[in-house]
């Protein structure tokens, strides 16, 4: 077997071992590269900074174990930013598997900043099923207390200090939706109707279809995959899981590019050799 044939037939098991080493080494060696924030991440950060003190932010989180690599860093950085500023927020989900994940982050961060449930944040848990998102988001935007009724602990909205006087989407200054595929209904039924700003936290693979919303100013910022989480962590000066993952991802991407280039060089050499033999 010639060299170009050998380079195109590397066993899958070898590739998997190289991949495992490539993503594990940066994590254990704690490698660090500069992470300059991109326009879309800066937009998200600035949107949180622009919320006046005391005004409410809505966080909608649908990520779970499957998307933890991309979305955990985003959620952690956003919650850190909100709690550091003392910005009250409500959080809810349309994925029943999500609450344990975001609750762990919120409780850790709240302990560090001395934030109190009910005053600084409110959890509504699993509220709108994914299939009924258009109806749910519209009803919630129109009459928030009427739709939500009570939080996960059973406390009526009217008795939660953070939600005193909340009536509809006008009372929220910013909506941040974090998940594999963020909720586009916030653009249709909230941003367009009430003017509330929207930020997306999204898996990188889905982000290409949502860049047009930034261009049209329908969303003010976007956290793209692990990169978005890492950049936001750098902006709030608390490097954590997002930075760790993006370093591992860096070497994973480099490996893929290197393998594709190598295989293409080998294929080119093979084509030339075959042409020479036949001609």
């Amino acid at each position: 077997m010639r060299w170009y044939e050998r380079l195109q037939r590397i066993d899958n098991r070898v590739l998997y071992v190289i991949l495992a080493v490539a993503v594990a080494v940066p994590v254990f060696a704690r490698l660090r590269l500069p992470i300059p924030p991109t326009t879309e991440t800066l937009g998200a950060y600035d949107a949180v900074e622009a919320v006046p003190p005391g005004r409410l932010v809505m966080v909608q989180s649908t990520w779970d174990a499957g998307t933890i690599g991309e979305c955990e860093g985003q959620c952690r950085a956003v919650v850190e930013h909100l709690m550091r500023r003392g910005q009250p927020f409500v959080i809810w989900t349309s994925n029943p598997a999500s609450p344990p994940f975001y609750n762990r982050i919120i409780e850790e961060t709240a302990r560090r900043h001395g934030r109190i449930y009910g005053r600084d944040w409110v959890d509504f848990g699993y509220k709108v099923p994914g299939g009924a998102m258009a109806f749910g988001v519209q009803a919630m935007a129109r009459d928030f207390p009427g739709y939500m009724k009570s939080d996960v602990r059973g406390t009526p909205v009217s008795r939660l200090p953070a939600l005193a006087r909340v009536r509809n989407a006008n009372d929220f200054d910013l909506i941040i939706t974090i998940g594999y595929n963020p909720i586009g209904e916030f653009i249709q039924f909230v941003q367009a109707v009430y003017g509330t700003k929207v930020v997306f936290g999204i898996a990188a693979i889905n982000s290409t279809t949502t860049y047009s919303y930034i261009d049209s100013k329908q969303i003010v910022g976007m956290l793209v995959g692990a990169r978005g989480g890492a950049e936001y962590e750098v902006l709030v000066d608390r490097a954590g899981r997002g930075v760790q993952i993006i370093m591992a991802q860096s070497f994973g991407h480099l490996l893929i590019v290197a393998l594709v280039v190598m295989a293409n060089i080998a294929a080119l050499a093979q084509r030339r050799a075959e042409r020479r033999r036949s001609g």
Partner: protein
Amino acid sequence: MKRRAIIVVTFLAGLYYLLEFVLPPRIGGAPDADGAAAATSAQIGATRFIAYTGLRNDGRPVIMRVRGDGAGPRQVLIAPGFSRRDDYRGARAPQFVAPDRLYYIGLGWDDRTPRVCLARHAAGRWRTLSRAVLGNGLPGEPDSSGIAWASISRETTGGYRMLYLGLQGERATLCMALSPDGLQWTKRGPVAAEDINGLRPLSVTQTGADARSPVLLLLRDAAGRRILREVVLVDGVRRLRKLADVGLPQGLTLQDIRHSSPMSFLATTEEANGVTRVAALTWSTRMNALALEVTNPTLIAPGKKPTSTYLSDARGTVDDLLVVVGAFAVGLGLIGLAQLHGRRLLALQKGWPESTAFFLAAGAMASFTVYARLHPDAGTWGTRGYDLLFYGLLQPLGSSMFSLLAAYLVSAAYRAFRVRTFEGGLLAASATLIMLGQVPVGNWLTQHLPPYLQIPKVMAWVLFVNNTAVVRAVNFGIFVGALATAMRVWLSMDRASMRSVE
């Protein structure tokens, strides 16, 4: 029969959600159902009336009019206009300036940024100007977030003077603007005021046309107490000097106050439940000090409340019913699984170890979860077991499933990605660019190159320009196609789809 029942239930549920979606939660009711606020007294010819802000649940305030004594029918004077960008999301806080002007705060299409708009009375009706007369300032200026409140007075010399509260985020600063005609305004910047550090201005009102006439500033301190301060413009109207604090009526929380006539004021009072009313006040003296006393605490009360359609009120119950139906489906699924695996386990058929694992996993997860829900703060073996199962087992397994993608991706890219054509080369180049641009290593590799060659910059150009154009084109094509298909079906032109039904 069973099928028919399912169809009927599905249809009724769908009908309910459709009606709940289409119909408003409440119908009828006045445009000022949730409160009346920020009023001004006005006179056109011999007709005296009060223009005030009507508040309602939809968050789009309107300007309304009512007879001078607050009685009689109420009419909408200025409503948000879809064709006007500067009061697209609402109009509030009017101020009448004789003989025919009504200045007001318009909430613009751009995130409700407030700005000063103008309506003029001509030929028996009010006509709004298409654009605001005074908008928000540039970033960094004290009115960069808009203008919350304005008090305009027509000077004896013929010009116009405006004192306004500029917003920069939540911070409000008293500023001034001058105009020769009330249309073209020149901002003169902040007006320095004594002794208002730490106090937030809520409203300002000039009590006369003369620049030396007293100005009343309503302030709020950190504890939420209201302070009404009488001040006067000095130093060529660049500074405010305190004259005195004016006593406020006991038991009323003022939101704003506006001078109405030489002796009277119109103020917005707020109740504990947040409902606002317009009250009439007049000058008086209390303990030999200047004070205001209430002549009518409810000059304008909130209007008629809307009636509920009950559709939104029932939403929670209907949702719960559907959740119960969903829970039954889950329960039926579980019973089915238990029957299947139970039979296999009892007969020790092939795969019985997996069936055992199913019973163990389902039983352990269900019991630990129920225990953890019932004793959330117990910190016992039960909650520790839940943590172990959820965070120690379920989460890593879920992540592992998704992570397998990485392995398949490496293998697939390595084996299948061969550049054989020009288009293939373009695809490979853009994919490489995006892959390296999405991670810090792309920036690190090209950080010393000129900016237009750095990978993150090129990636941003590809994503924001090329990608956006393509996504829009594709979406546009999809929706035009969907529209055409919908029209064909609707107009019964699509015979193929009808044939299957026939």
